[in-house]
């Protein structure tokens, strides 16, 4: 399998993304944010070219697997089917344009010069890994990585409280949804008996329904469906490149992507369909209403994204081949026009100083390029020919009309109403930006700012002209999710069908509605559940502080007693299995002598009242134990024990210096508790050791180890060779623990010193 990994291009592309993150950070640090972004764009650019080439040549899907722990199914597994490649083109292609845009958006001295390019590329990497993943564990890891990197990106301006609240809210909801998704994936893996996505067959039964519900909820949090959409409008605090990338083309599509990919698995599952339609339809309609009422152009786009994602979730949950086909088409079209619109609004913001539709107007003359882009992208969003959005929206309308019965009454009608509202808010946005209105001063343009949006908007037009190429991308992807989708394709002009008639009515009705509400100030809707989310956001740190306060009370004796009690419970359960006939009293009488001393010292240790005395007695016990080791022929162990005892006793002498000479008196209850716990630990551990010694499992590997020690380790002390060579990695782990402890102690000491001095 490793060999396979080495020859696969997709593997190298993912790796190059990883290196790119480091290089981008370095370049940004040395030469400023623009250099960092330029370096960061290299890997996505190569990936785009690769994916487009593979799609065009219709190459067979390839699979790459890197096994970590095979027995636990912990593998990194990627595959390149048509859906994955289509998503790759979106993620990496739009990524390149966003990196280009960001170089113009940020001034050369912008903050976060090293952090921002690296984080943006890290996000792009996570997204790429997500869409290429073929194991649900791989998918989940990258899913969580997108949550974390997007948190960092939304919180770019980390000095602002508003921004940090928005970032935290996004993290809380998407990471919380990630946990729900994880449980769903666990159940699914249990039901199907595999973690490989391409091996999944259709599942049914109660467990499958539970998995369906959990996965759908997880997907809905990421794709900002009602009631989890709270975070998306807030995330608009992010810089424009981040919004254009994360909140249009990529991250919010992750949920849609997982619904699409797992759709075939849950085909015919009522829970899956009902939840998907509930999320999708409510988000589609409420999102559109929100977009219709907002004044801030960026928030209009955010709410419109909620609505469009709702449309995608609805189409993919219909369970029809036409729905899947329309969903994939709109997925592609939406990524193009929404990214372009975000960039235009960003440019308007930079050049006029405001994003409020009520304060803007007349930009058609003052910003002709941006205006053209806005019209082209907006028209594509509204589904007006001759643009890609029209062909895709036409497929959605067809998918809605083909339904019958209740499904048509609920989903079909909603899709059509949603389309009307989409045309309406697009009209309102365009009139607000371009139509007559307040005169605003416009700063001179920066051409680089416009180029990426021109490319994206033009892609909508070019895609319509070369619809055959788009079909070549969309149809295989749809077929992969539903084989019946092969009969469909996008049409430049569908002919005089009912669908076209409906589309034209939709556009007309939408424009009328848009004209009616244009330039009208309306109460801005609050996202459903916003207050609850904010309260939760406040409650989490308070709650965790409370719990930590209870658990970490800071009393050392209670910590010790707790640990000892837990140990005794584990040991006692084992000690109960002790059988007297297998116990050997002693091998030689000397042992009895040593043990007598040990017991006597231990008993004395309980009754001695002086702290120093207790420490010395403990040392005596330890030294006698090392004597027992010597009798058993373990000089290494004995030496170590002896040295540890020495250090501990000397340490006690030093440490006890600033404590009272005698133990303090303690209340009787506490004394009783300690006695019970001590007895339990003593009896339990002794019993457990007797059981363990009396029932050896397997043969001791000493012969093999001794041979390996001399031949491979070159040493005759087997113990030492085991520590430094055979199990060297274990030792490394152990000494790393010591290092961590040391650092902790030094840090505590420093805190203490600063407390003393202040």
């Amino acid at each position: 399998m490793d060999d396979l990994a080495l020859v696969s291009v997709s593997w190298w592309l993912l790796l190059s993304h990883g290196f790119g993150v480091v290089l981008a950070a370095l370049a940004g640090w040395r030469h400023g944010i623009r250099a960092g972004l330029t370096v960061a764009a290299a890997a996505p650019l190569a990936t785009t070219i690769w994916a487009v080439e593979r799609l065009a040549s219709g190459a067979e899907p390839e699979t790459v697997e890197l096994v970590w722990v095979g027995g636990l199914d912990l593998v990194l597994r990627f595959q390149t089917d048509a859906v994955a490649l289509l998503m790759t083109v979106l993620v990496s292609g739009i990524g390149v344009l966003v990196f280009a845009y960001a170089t113009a958006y940020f001034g050369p001295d912008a903050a976060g010069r090293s952090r921002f390019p690296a984080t943006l590329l890290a996000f792009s990497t996570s997204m790429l890994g997500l869409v290429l993943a073929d194991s649900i564990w791989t998918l989940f890891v990258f899913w969580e990585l997108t949550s974390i990197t997007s948190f960092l990106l939304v919180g770019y301006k980390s000095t602002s409280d508003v921004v940090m609240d928005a970032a935290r809210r996004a993290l809380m909801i998407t990471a919380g949804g990630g946990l729900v998704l994880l449980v769903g994936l666990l159940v699914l893996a249990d039901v199907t008996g595999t973690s490989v996505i391409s091996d999944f067959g259709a599942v049914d039964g109660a467990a499958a329904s539970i998995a369906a519900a959990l996965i759908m909820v997880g997907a809905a949090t990421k794709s900002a469906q009602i009631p989890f959409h709270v975070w998306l409008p807030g995330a608009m605090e992010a810089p424009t490149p981040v919004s254009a990338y994360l909140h249009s083309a990529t991250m919010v599509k992750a949920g849609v992507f997982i619904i699409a990919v797992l759709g075939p698995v849950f085909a015919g599952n009522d829970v899956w369909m009902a939840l998907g339609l509930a999320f999708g339809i409510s988000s589609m309609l409420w999102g559109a209403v929100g977009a219709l009422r907002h004044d801030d152009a960026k928030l209009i786009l955010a709410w419109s994204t909620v609505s469009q994602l709702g449309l995608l979730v609805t189409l993919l949950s219909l369970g029809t081949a036409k729905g899947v086909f329309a969903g994939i088409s709109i997925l592609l079209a939406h990524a193009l026009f929404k990214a372009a619109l975000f960039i235009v609004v960003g440019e308007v913001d930079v050049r006029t100083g405001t994003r409020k539709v009520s304060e803007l107007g007349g930009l058609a003359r003052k910003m002709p390029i941006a205006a053209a882009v806005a019209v082209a992208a907006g028209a594509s969003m509204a589904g007006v020919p001759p643009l890609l959005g029209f062909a895709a929206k036409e497929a959605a309308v067809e998918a809605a009309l083909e339904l019958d019965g209740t499904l048509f009454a609920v989903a079909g009608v909603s899709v059509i109403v949603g389309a009307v509202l989409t045309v309406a808010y697009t009209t309102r946005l365009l009139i607000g930006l371009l139509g007559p209105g307040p005169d605003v001063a416009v700063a001179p343009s920066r051409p680089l700012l416009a180029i990426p949006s021109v490319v994206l908007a033009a892609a909508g037009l070019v895609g319509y002209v070369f619809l055959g190429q788009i079909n070549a991308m969309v149809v295989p992807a749809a077929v992969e999710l539903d084989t019946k989708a092969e009969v469909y394709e996008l049409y430049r002009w569908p002919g005089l069908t009912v669908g076209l008639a409906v589309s034209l009515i939709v556009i007309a009705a939408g424009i009328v509605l848009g004209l009616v509400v244009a330039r009208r100030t309306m109460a801005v809707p609050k996202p459903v559940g916003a207050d609850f989310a904010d309260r939760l956001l406040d409650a989490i740190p308070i709650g965790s502080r409370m719990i930590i306060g209870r658990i970490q009370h800071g009393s050392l004796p209670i910590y010790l007693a707790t640990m000892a009690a837990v140990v005794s419970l584990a040991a006692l359960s084992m000690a109960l299995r002790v059988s007297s006939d297998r116990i050997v009293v002693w091998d030689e009488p000397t042992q009895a002598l040593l043990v007598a001393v040990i017991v006597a010292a231990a008993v004395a240790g309980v009754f001695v009242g002086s702290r120093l005395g207790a420490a010395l007695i403990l040392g005596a016990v330890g030294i006698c134990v090392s004597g027992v080791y010597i009798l058993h022929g373990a000089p290494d162990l004995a030496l170590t024990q002896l040295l540890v005892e020495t250090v501990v006793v000397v340490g006690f002498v030093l440490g006890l210096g600033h404590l009272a000479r005698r133990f303090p008196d303690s209340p009787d209850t506490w004394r009783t508790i300690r006695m019970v716990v001590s007895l339990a630990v003593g009896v339990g551990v002794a019993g457990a050791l007797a059981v363990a010694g009396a029932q050896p499992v397997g043969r001791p590997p000493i012969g093999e180890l001794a041979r390996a020690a001399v031949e491979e380790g070159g040493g005759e002390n087997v113990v030492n060779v085991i520590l430094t060579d055979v199990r060297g990695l274990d030792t490394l782990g152990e000494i790393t623990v010591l290092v961590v402890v040391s650092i902790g102690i030094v840090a505590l000491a420093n805190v203490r010193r600063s407390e003393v001095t202040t």
Partner: protein
Amino acid sequence: MIRHLSPMTRISVKLVTPPALLVGVYLLFAGHNNPGGGFAAGLVFGAVLILRTLAEVQEPRHAREIVAFGLFAAVAVAIAPALAGGVLFDQVIGEIEVPVLGKVKGGTALPFDIAVAAIVVGLVVALLDGLAASGGIRSHHRLEHDE
């Protein structure tokens, strides 16, 4: 804390230091074929340090540096063979002729043992430092201040 530190304590600690260190070094080198090793050596060095701190001959210092050196050395020994195309912790053994000692055989286990010893010493120093910070040890600085 020993309030009235006797000159005897100080002098005997100072006297004991060189032979104790020698024992530690012996354990470090002997470890590969006889009882001993990095951990044992580190403990001996640690015990010496505690005694010297106790006798106020020395102050615990540079825990972080010692620990950092140890961890870097350990990781270097671990991954060096892998970088050279082998597996982690692949043992490299060589023999060299040293003028006085004659033929000396050594492997990469030795630097690893040294790293382990350094980390153990670092931990002891950190502990002593922690005690000093919480007022367990009189530091030289405070002694001068008192007088």
